[in-house]
């Protein structure tokens, strides 16, 4: 608890991974504060006395040489850099200007107009959404004096939440009650959201600040009581005749909105009421237009917000200004929250492991990315309490995945094996070895899902770190594959054309290799999305992508061979039940689908690589000045995540440079090849776009999957057009014998192209 100084710094150092693509240099103001501070020590305690040593201290300090320090040997000056300087107005949030008072002289008993209540409520909504966007409560919701009044001192019952502390229940004005009920609902909502985010994986400095500055978000007050108060207030408002109708409606909207919001965040954690939660989100969204259209009635009350409240909050950071978020931005954020919330809950409907992964990755790729609260909800739905999607074991999902890729209808996945107790029985041995494999692989497998739930930069960064683990997993699995052979009595394939050695399936390691390749492709694709690579590097990086996708395609070919062999064996037997027949069909469908997808990927990547090589040759892409970098060093940097990977082998620098620049090929033949590859890829994407949800393993997210494939298709068509435009220009140049090519190139900014993973250059003719 007391070590936040030191741990704060070590965690900062751990984050300084200078070799990574994204360097995390964000100030770690709140990270140093992850644990709650200890309660304030009592100043009066029987065992402790304090002695005035002012004189001795001052005299002793005077004896020190200028610049000489007396310090704790374990305390470093590096740490002291993080210390807050007391009495410095920029650092010390508790510093008072001469004549300034600690408290704002705000009169809480002062009556408020209905318009003012609307104004305050709408401002609070902006603050709440600013918090959802990643700003700390201290600079948003907690700047409201009314909120502060409720939270300090911490209330334990509704009776302790009156703004005017002299007021009793009967004489609270209607307007104060409306505001109080709304504030209570708001705080409770924040409490649920904070709880959810805190219990999942997120990055405090990048995503969200869960720090509550030592204030309780109404944990002591029951959710039902606040809902009741909101409802009572709605009724009291309805029968009142002191408020003009227009304002009355507006206030009614706001109270109803708050009650719904609170009910949703309370219910959203449930993993058993998919339809109900979905309906709640969509109904909630319908309330927003009413809110939006009445915002104009509000009259802001800026005096009811104060930056001074920060000096009362426990805080190791200097004072910071109130965050200003516009109404429009707040409503946008809220609308997205509803839309994404309604979709996220659908993850609970499980079809198969591949569909689950497709769902999560497409959901996370939504633009803009779903907010942190929704992302943590998604994590909770998937992994909460180590129970997958609320009702499945991790083993079920993992076995499902194995059976639909490399082990259809395999005796290795037969649950009956677990029942065998005789240690020499091969089934016992199989169960035992599979359990070793599962315990080894489950974490890595779930980490893929967990990783995709993070923010975009983190996804790539984490994949770069975990990919090495998959290489080791593959090796470990290979060991188990060889041991298992003895018990499964696997008969190897003998094919003299390929090798004199018998060929075994190596099912488990095949599976690991497949996922390793997938993630390596993602690392590159996310690199394009996050604009990690400079335009002049794109030829190389797309070459590498096609290399990986081609490797995956060949690997899938091998898996298919073994699946097909097994399938034929049971077809001939006819004794096997329908279930194993289905499993084989499903696995073969998946392997086919993934092969098609890999083919389309390497086709387009190949085409783009050739196109960029031509553009580099024609000097149409100007490399940025790089006084401290060389091609070799950049190669090492880009390949860093893959350096430790045994398979597929890293392409050495000179080989890669040669393969990309293809010096022996003429520019026109490169363009011809690029055009052919683009056409092949286009055909591939077209076929993919016609697949059913079941065939494409995107059940539950077919619509977004189709959109994604269509975006790839568009990028593909656009590539074809660009290739043709360059070809025409090069032909023109050769015909005229001129040295100048009459085109220029524009690289679309991120988000402006058809698909973030496909950076297609735009060719513009120069007259």
């Amino acid at each position, binding site marked *: 608890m007391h070590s936040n100084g030191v741990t704060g710094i070590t965690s900062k150092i751990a984050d300084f991974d200078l070799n990574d693509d994204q360097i995390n240099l964000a100030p770690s103001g709140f990270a140093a504060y992850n644990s709650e501070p200890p309660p304030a*020590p009592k*100043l009066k305690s029987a065992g402790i006395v304090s002695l*005035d040593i002012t004189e001795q201290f001052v005299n002793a300090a*005077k004896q020190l040489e200028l*610049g000489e*320090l*007396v*310090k704790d040997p374990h305390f470093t000056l590096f740490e002291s850099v993080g210390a807050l300087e007391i*009495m410095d107005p920029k650092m010390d949030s508790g510093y008072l200007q001469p004549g300034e008072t600690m408290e704002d002289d705000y009169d809480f008993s002062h009556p408020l107009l209905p318009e003012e209540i609307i104004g305050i409520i709408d401002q609070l909504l902006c603050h709440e959404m600013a918090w959802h966007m990643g700003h700390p409560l201290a600079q948003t919701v907690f700047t409201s004096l009314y909120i502060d009044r409720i939270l300090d001192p911490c209330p334990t019952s509704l009776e302790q939440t009156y703004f005017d502390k002299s007021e009793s229940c009967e004489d609270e004005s209607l307007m104060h009650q409306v505001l109080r009920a709304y504030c209570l609902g708001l705080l409770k909502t924040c409490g649920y959201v904070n709880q959810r985010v805190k219990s999942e994986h997120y990055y405090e400095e990048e995503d969200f600040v869960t720090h509550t500055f030592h204030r309780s978000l109404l944990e002591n007050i029951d959710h039902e009581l606040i809902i009741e108060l909101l409802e009572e207030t709605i009724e009291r408002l309805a029968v009142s005749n002191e408020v003009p109708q227009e304002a009355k409606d507006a206030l009614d909207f706001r109270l109803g909105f708050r009650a719904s919001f609170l009910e949703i965040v309370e219910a959203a954690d449930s993993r058993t009421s998919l339809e109900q939660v979905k309906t709640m989100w969509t109904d909630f969204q319908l309330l927003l237009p009413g809110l939006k259209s009445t915002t104009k009635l509000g009259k802001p009350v800026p005096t009811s917000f104060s930056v001074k409240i920060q000096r009362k909050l*426990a805080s190791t950071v200097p004072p910071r200004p109130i965050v200003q978020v516009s109404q429009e931005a707040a409503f946008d954020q809220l609308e997205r929250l509803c839309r994404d919330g309604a979709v996220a809950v659908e993850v609970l409907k499980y079809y198969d492991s591949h569909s689950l992964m497709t769902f999560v990755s497409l959901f996370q790729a939504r633009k803009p990315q779903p907010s942190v609260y929704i992302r943590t909800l998604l994590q909770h739905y998937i992994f909460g309490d180590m129970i997958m999607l609320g009702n499945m074991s991790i083993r079920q999902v993992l076995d499902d995945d194995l059976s639909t890729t490399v082990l259809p209808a395999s005796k290795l996945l037969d649950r009956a094996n677990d029942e065998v107790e005789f240690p020499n029985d091969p089934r016992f041995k199989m169960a035992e070895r599979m359990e070793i494999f599962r315990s080894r692989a489950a974490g890595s497998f779930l980490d893929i899902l967990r990783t995709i739930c993070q923010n975009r930069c983190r996804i790539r960064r984490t994949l770069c770190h975990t990919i090495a683990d998959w290489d080791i997993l593959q090796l470990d699995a290979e060991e188990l594959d060889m041991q298992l052979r003895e018990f499964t009595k696997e008969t190897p394939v003998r094919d003299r054309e390929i090798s004199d050695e018998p060929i075994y399936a190596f099912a488990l390691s095949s599976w690991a290799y497949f996922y390793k390749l997938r993630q390596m492709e993602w690392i590159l694709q996310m690199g394009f999305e996050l604009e990690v690579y400079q335009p002049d590097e794109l030829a190389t990086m797309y070459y590498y992508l096609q290399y990986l996708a081609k490797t995956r395609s060949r690997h899938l070919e091998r898996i298919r061979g073994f699946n097909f062999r097994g399938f034929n064996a049971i077809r001939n037997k006819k004794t096997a039940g329908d279930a194993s027949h289905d499993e084989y069909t499903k696995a073969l469908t998946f392997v086919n689908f993934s092969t098609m997808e890999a083919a389309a990927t390497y086709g387009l990547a190949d085409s783009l690589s050739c196109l960029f090589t031509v553009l580099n040759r024609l000097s149409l892409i100007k490399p940025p000045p790089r006084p401290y970098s060389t091609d070799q060093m950049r190669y090492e940097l880009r390949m860093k995540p893959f350096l430790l990977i045994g398979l597929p082998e890293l392409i050495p620098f000179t080989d890669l440079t040669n393969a990309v620049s293809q010096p022996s090929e003429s520019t026109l033949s490169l363009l011809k090849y690029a055009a052919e590859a683009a056409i092949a890829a286009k055909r591939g994407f077209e076929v993919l776009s016609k697949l059913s949800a079941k065939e494409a393993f995107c059940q539950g997210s077919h619509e977004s999957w189709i959109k994604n494939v269509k975006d790839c298709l568009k990028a593909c068509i656009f590539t074809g057009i660009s290739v043709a435009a360059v070809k025409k220009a090069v032909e023109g140049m050769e015909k005229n014998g001129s040295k100048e090519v009459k085109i220029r190139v524009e690289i679309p900014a991120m988000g402006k192209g058809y698909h973030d993973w496909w950076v297609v250059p735009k060719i513009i003719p120069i007259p």
Partner: protein
Amino acid sequence: MEQAQSKDYLTSLLNKNLRITTSDARMFLGQFKCTDSDRNIILAHTFEYRIPPPPKDLGESKEPVSLDLTSRYLGLVVVPGEYIIQIEVEEFASQMKGKSVGGNQAALREESVV
């Protein structure tokens, strides 16, 4: 005090809890980590206590004075020497036999000792 003695004295205070009162009537309670010739003081795990203005009849009153101090956690702070008006060190009462208690901040003092 001699220079060496002074250094020893200050060193003996390291890691003890100090209560530092500043010119704006706040008090900081934290672990003493470092000081220099300008008596700038670094405290770790510091709490800030805001002392309300002292009641006027403090001298005469025989009644124990009890004031509500508002406190909050700040962590690592450096208090510049120029703003320090009082420094107190916390000691265990059991180890204090025979030593006299100085200071005049009755508001902060533990009642049984006063």
